[in-house]
């Protein structure tokens, strides 16, 4: 066991730092550091910079344009990227649909979809959840009925993040007989968002943002070529993907950056004649979260190391999801506590680029509560934390 980086790893770290220094757009960095909104253009621009560097497909196989990094290199990249405030890629294309396509798609599909995903030419969104199927994806009701060379899709997906920006959606749909109420009736289908019959209903989140949507399918005709793999195997494909997703969802890098910012800012937030850094119980809570995060970071590194020796991330990765979201939510709460009375004003308009009214509170104090409200979602989506505990019970503890 050895925690030190090798010579090669140190050289790689240097390259990453230089790249981020030189290539991460300064205007985007400024927006992020001030808590201002970033646009779709900012995001796509940054992802295309990554693409040109060859660093867009972090987990992709090298043959499709992946980086071929070791777990330690991935760790270094995530660390440095987070410290530079550079956002991770939007997951739906690069991290979620692409692995399914390169693992289970046919050659034609790989050639058709993967290059545009890698180059961030196409924005994807995810159609898994439905109004009456949250954690229980096996009970999905959206149907895809084969009609010649097409599927006719009917139903409603919900919880679809940024569908309003998306060009394509990947869906789990029911292709089996209506009586078959289990996983074996579910298939994985790619659908062009411009297809007639698709409509969106925005859903406003607790922080007032339009982030998710319901996506309605009304006799939407989808070419049968867009089916990935075999009919009835969609649930299997999605599950493999979900296990991978859970590792990323720990989001250690983002939590570290938030926590570091909190540790710095607490010295500047007044509490009478002193600052929040003098508040021993606040500082203890901060220390406890930091310690938890250290433990989580090593839990993630252990998982990644195990993966690199050939093992797929097992059900143990559920703890990364559970603990990662709990820690991030605790950091959110500490932000709210630190903001004090300035956690109360709801003034999101002041975080737009062209705002010129009175600025209420210092820095991002007034964003703390909305962020806290919004991020309660993280322990619900991607398989709720309750589902993760069920996975631990069943597959780790054998209960």
């Amino acid at each position: 066991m050895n925690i030190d980086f090798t010579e090669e790893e140190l050289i790689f770290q240097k390259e990453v730092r230089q790249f981020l220094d030189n290539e991460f757009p300064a205007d985007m960095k400024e927006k992020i550091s001030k808590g201002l909104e970033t646009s779709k253009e900012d995001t796509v621009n940054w992802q295309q910079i990554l693409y040109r560097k060859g660093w867009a497909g972090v987990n992709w196989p090298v043959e499709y344009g992946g980086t071929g990094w070791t777990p330690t290199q991935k760790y270094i990249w995530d660390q440095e990227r987070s410290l530079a405030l550079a956002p991770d890629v939007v997951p739906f294309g690069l991290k979620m649909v692409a692995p399914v396509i390169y693992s289970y798609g046919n050659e034609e599909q790989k050639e058709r979809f993967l290059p545009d995903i890698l180059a961030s030419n196409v924005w994807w969104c995810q159609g898994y959840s439905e109004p009456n199927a949250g954690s229980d994806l096996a009970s999905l009701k959206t149907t895809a009925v084969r009609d010649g060379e097409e599927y006719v899709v009917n139903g409603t997906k919900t919880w679809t993040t940024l569908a309003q920006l998306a060009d394509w959606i990947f869906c789990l749909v029911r292709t089996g007989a209506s009586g078959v109420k289990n996983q074996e009736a579910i298939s994985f289908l790619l659908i062009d968002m411009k297809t007639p019959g698709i409509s969106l209903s925005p859903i406003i989140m607790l922080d007032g943002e339009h982030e998710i949507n319901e996506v309605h399918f009304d006799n939407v005709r989808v070419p049968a070529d867009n089916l990935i793999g075999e009919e009835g195997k969609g649930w299997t494909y999605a599950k493999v993907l979900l296990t991978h997703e859970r590792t990323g969802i720990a989001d250690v890098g983002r939590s570290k950056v938030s926590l570091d910012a909190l540790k710095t800012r607490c010295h500047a937030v007044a509490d009478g004649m002193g600052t929040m850094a003098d508040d021993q119980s606040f500082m203890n809570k901060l220390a406890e979260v930091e310690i938890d995060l250290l433990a989580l970071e090593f839990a993630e590194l252990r998982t990644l190391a195990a993966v690199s020796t050939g093992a797929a991330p097992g059900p143990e990765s559920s703890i990364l999801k559970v603990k990662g979201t709990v820690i991030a939510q605790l950091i959110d709460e500490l932000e709210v506590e630190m903001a004090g009375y300035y956690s109360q004003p709801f003034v999101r308009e002041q975080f737009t680029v062209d705002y010129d009214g009175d600025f209420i509170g210092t820095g991002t104090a007034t964003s703390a509560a909305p962020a806290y409200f919004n991020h309660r979602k993280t322990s619900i989506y991607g398989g709720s934390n309750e589902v993760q505990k069920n996975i631990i019970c069943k597959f780790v503890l054998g209960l």
Partner: protein
Amino acid sequence: MDFSLNEEQQMLQDSVSKYVAQDYDFETRKAIVADSEGYSKTHWQNFAELGWLTVPFLEEDGGFGDRAVDLTVMMQEFGKAIVVEPYIASLVMAGGAVSAAGNAAQKEAILGALMEGSLQMALAFAEPDSRYRLNHVATTATQSDSSYIINGQKSVVLNGGAAQQLVVVVRTSGEVADKSGISLLLVDANSKGVRKAAYRTVDGFNAAEFYFDNVEVSETNLLGTEGESLAVLERVIDRATLAVCAEAVGAMQVLLNKTVEYTKTRAQFGVPISSFQALQHRMADMYIEYELSQSILLMAAMKVDAADGYDPRAISAAKSRIGKAARLIGQEAVQLHGGVGVTDELDVGHYFKRLTAIQFLFGSTDHHTRRFQQI
């Protein structure tokens, strides 16, 4: 000892309970929050007609008696509908300051109008650096002939958007954190030199930042004795603290019930999720937290009304305990509702937001735990 409501209290509870159930549903509240006034004049007038605006005032001033138990009984019912009308800000806080410190003329000019519903007020006490320290007052009022000249900034003034008159906490002498030298001044919200930036709070109330730039008010606007108003301020904030505690208990009760009902109807894996024992025990924990909150609220209210009077330690105990419960019940209600719990369309998230805001109003949970231990 006696744990039952008297007849008047029972009537008050029934009256508020019936009103909010019939006339203040979630859609009504949404419309009020979206409206630029920041509260509903119609509902406020109804509150006045029903006599509710008199509750926090003494009988000798024409009020209902200013008993803590009455106030908590009413605020619990308000909490069940997360009423956004500025009852606490205008009446308990600003009105409370006038009631406690004002002279006969000031009381006459103000309290009647407050109880009739024709006047909206606010208490401007917090500042950018003060956090929860009531003695930290950087806003100054210097005397000049028979006037005071006010300079400074006041933060997150509840009902600041609607208030016609303010009670402003100012420093008339001493250093910024001295306990003496703190005074209360009545200031017309439209006075020359007063600038405000109004907004909604995250939980839908109206509030504002106030900037005072050489604002001149007559020395007759002084409430109470110059330089000696910290004690009054503490009592007023303690009373407001008790009021939000009561509101929180009402809101928690609703969230608990809604969560229990939701889990009975929400099916996953072919059965209602209420059948999952892990969720059941978490709801049992929510219930326990709610019951303890109800108990400590009663304790604090009864101690405040007791023969030996004002008990800030009891109030800090209640705020600390209820703050913890508000956190657990709010978070668990959202989690157990799943996706819909974090959307704006469902009422559950709004109860959660109010319960969150209350945790940090008038001192965080930690602040009150510490205060309980130190006084």
